[in-house]
């Protein structure tokens, strides 16, 4: 058994969000650069150049690339041989979020849903825990902006709609979203499982490296087809026309019930931010 102090969890979460909220990674930088070379719309190219400049300024000055530093989503992969001491794990995570958003001068965007009263420190985080083999603790910090989150969608398809139904649903979600989720976007898609598990899977796909290929050839083919068809809609960067709407589509599937075909699509803007720390 390995002992991990809750204070170390707080420190890891704090550090991860301080890093994550500044700017997306090199994978997004490469994807924006490649997209700019292929973009036929002058205003589209101008927007893509602004985004590359923006991310460089953010990284150089240590300021957030986007003012929406998100709601804090935290994935914890906890080794089954780990024992957390000196505090409650949830409190430890929230304390890390609280410190990062205060010290980083990040926007505190979290409030009560109906009364709209801000909690003042960007807590609580949305925390997912998974028990995995081993004695490590992996923390993945995702500041999730809501311009893109708001455009996400889920539908319980009829199994008869099949693969075509899934493709049609995703294309419909993109057309409904238009310029609102700050394209160029990355789309995470979850197919199967249950109502909430499809959504969970879709969000988790946003952690994949932009430019990576799905190891499942059938899904890789579907991802490539969707990316091409979505970009061919011509919605373009910021919805102002052009060839670049999505930088990547990532799909995961999970077995589902014989009566169902859940599908969820989670939008991320180009500020696809995440950082991980392993204790």
């Amino acid at each position, binding site marked *: 058994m390995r002992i991990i102090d809750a204070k170390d969890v707080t420190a890891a979460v704090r550090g991860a969000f301080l890093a994550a909220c500044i700017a997306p990674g090199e994978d997004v930088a490469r994807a924006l650069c490649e997209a700019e070379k292929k973009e036929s719309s002058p205003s589209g190219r101008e*927007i893509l150049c*602004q*985004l590359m400049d923006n991310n460089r300024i953010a990284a150089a000055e240590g*300021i957030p690339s986007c*003012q929406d530093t998100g709601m804090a989503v935290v994935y914890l992969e906890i080794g089954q041989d780990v024992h957390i001491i000196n505090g409650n794990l949830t409190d430890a995570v929230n304390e890390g979020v609280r410190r990062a958003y205060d010290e980083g001068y990040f926007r505190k965007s979290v409030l009560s849903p109906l009364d709209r009263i*801000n909690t003042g420190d960007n807590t609580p985080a949305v925390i997912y825990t998974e028990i995995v083999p081993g004695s490590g603790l992996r923390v993945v910090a995702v500041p999730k902006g809501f311009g893109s989150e708001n455009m996400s969608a889920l539908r319980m398809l009829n199994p008869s709609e099949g693969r075509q139904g899934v493709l049609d649903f995703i294309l419909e979600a993109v057309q409904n979203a238009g310029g609102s989720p700050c394209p160029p976007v990355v789309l995470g898609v979850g197919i199967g499982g249950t109502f909430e598990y499809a959504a969970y899977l879709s969000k988790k796909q946003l952690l994949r490296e932009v430019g990576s290929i799905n190891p499942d050839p059938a899904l890789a083919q579907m991802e490539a087809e969707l990316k091409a068809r979505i970009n061919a809609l011509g919605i373009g960067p910021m919805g102002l026309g052009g060839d670049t709407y999505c930088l990547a589509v990532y799909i995961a599937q999970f077995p589902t019930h014989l009566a169902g075909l859940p599908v969820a699509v989670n939008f991320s803007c180009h500020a696809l931010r995440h950082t991980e720390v392993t204790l």
Partner: protein
Amino acid sequence: MKKITLPMNREEIGSLRAGDTVQLTGTIYTARDAAHKRLVAMIESNKPLPFSLKDAAIYYAGPCPAKPGQVFGSCGPTTSGRMNAYAPKLFDLGVQCTIGKGPLSKEVIGSIVENNAIYFCATGGAGALISKCVESAEIVAFGDLGAEAITRLAVRDFPAVVGVDSKGNNIVR
């Protein structure tokens, strides 16, 4: 690229076309969801407003807090469509332009045409870049709303694209 000084005269507004790229210099006011709700409530109860809407430019944005030494925190545009319910009332009272991101409703576009106004799209997510265009910032109302307070900004060469022009031409999807 056209350099625009705010406020514009109405002829200048009429000369801009959807798709034109511009750089805006002058005074703009940040206001988003909660500030709009309060402004419209004040208008409906005939209370004095915290700033003059005549020829005003409203920027749909809620910034990060400024770091020490920074004039203003990161401040890209937010989704304009969430202000659809409020925008026609503000255009009717003299607002000459709004700056945001994403499409507007038919009603809002109709109001833009009626009032010879204009809608600019800024680059969503370019918060750090846009913060560099802010030369001064002063909270003018609703400081209790934090990021959603109304702030008067002096901006220089703020990059944008005309999304909806005064004739109602719309390039935003």
